[in-house]
């Protein structure tokens, strides 16, 4: 058996630490970019706290995660034109949507939520949504029935 090598231990643990920190750094970058993409592409209408504008722009704060509980809801979050048409790539859109859910609607996210991936975004973007208001209205109705949520986060004050 080889005697325990201090040098070996240091090198290995340094590599592990480097690996962990690079993941963390990459994760931090994703968070920063997610936040920045929210600011550049979403905040102008949905506002810095995602509270929207009554009657005019939907509120996402403490709400948007509800869609994830409904059939078609996960897709809707991606396919709504504000998301699907954002001038950012598929992975970036996945990152900003994940960031947004955690940052604004953590309480509503289902426990088994799988974060969006770039691949999934790409597939969903290829199926553009034309009847946006109708789709949202049907989901809100389902939300009311299945989750007992009374508000629609658009016309509420």
């Amino acid at each position, binding site marked *: 058996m080889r005697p325990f090598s201090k040098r070996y231990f240091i090198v290995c643990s340094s590599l592990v630490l480097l690996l962990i920190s690079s993941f963390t750094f990459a994760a931090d*970058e994703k968070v920063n970019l997610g936040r920045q993409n929210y600011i550049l*592409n979403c*905040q*102008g209408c949905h506002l810095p706290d995602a509270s929207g*504008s009554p009657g*005019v722009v939907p509120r996402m704060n403490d709400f948007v995660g509800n869609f994830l509980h409904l059939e078609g809801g996960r897709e809707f979050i991606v396919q709504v034109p504000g998301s699907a*048409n954002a001038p950012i790539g598929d992975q970036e859109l996945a990152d900003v949507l994940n960031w947004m859910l955690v940052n604004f609607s953590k309480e509503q996210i289902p426990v088994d939520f799988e974060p969006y991936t770039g691949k999934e975004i790409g597939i969903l973007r290829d199926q553009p949504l034309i009847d946006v208001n109708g789709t949202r209205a049907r989901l809100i109705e389902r939300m009311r029935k299945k989750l007992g949520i009374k508000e629609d986060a658009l016309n509420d004050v």
Partner: protein
Amino acid sequence: MKWFDHITESISRKVAQNSSRRSFIGGFGTAIVGGAVIPILPVARAAEGHGGGQPTAPIDGAVDDPASCDYWRNCSIDGFLCSCCGGTSTSCPPGTEMSPITWIGTCKNPHDGKDYIISYNDCCGKTSCGNCFCNTNLLDRPTYRPHTANDINWCLGTSSAAYHCTVTLVLGVATKKA
């Protein structure tokens, strides 16, 4: 650019012009000067290959003057500068309402070379201020992509859509794309 000489010539030799018309034209004239001499580009776009090779901005007074179309934050603005209207570049004049809904762009600060995210909120509810009209259009695009379109009246979500002037709020530093 003969037409450019022509326009600056014609603007400077005008006499007894209607002041509102002069301010409107001045907005274009200054923008032309700004655009030709001091291009201000967001780094994120430059990294994608847009406008690479543009010269860096020479630092001069106008670039730091919030009442100038060449103020570094005004790289893509369409309207009256609130600094000339009883407000500042970051606050609305008395009695107006700041629109919560807005459009957001990026401008490079020539002092530190960083790209800042700028929110161009309108101040609304009163008739046009009429002073310091500017129309710069870096990365502006037509109204079919609204969140990069500055020709839209962004007095939305306010009790009145009457447009008065525009502020330029810094929201943060734009980081490079991953």
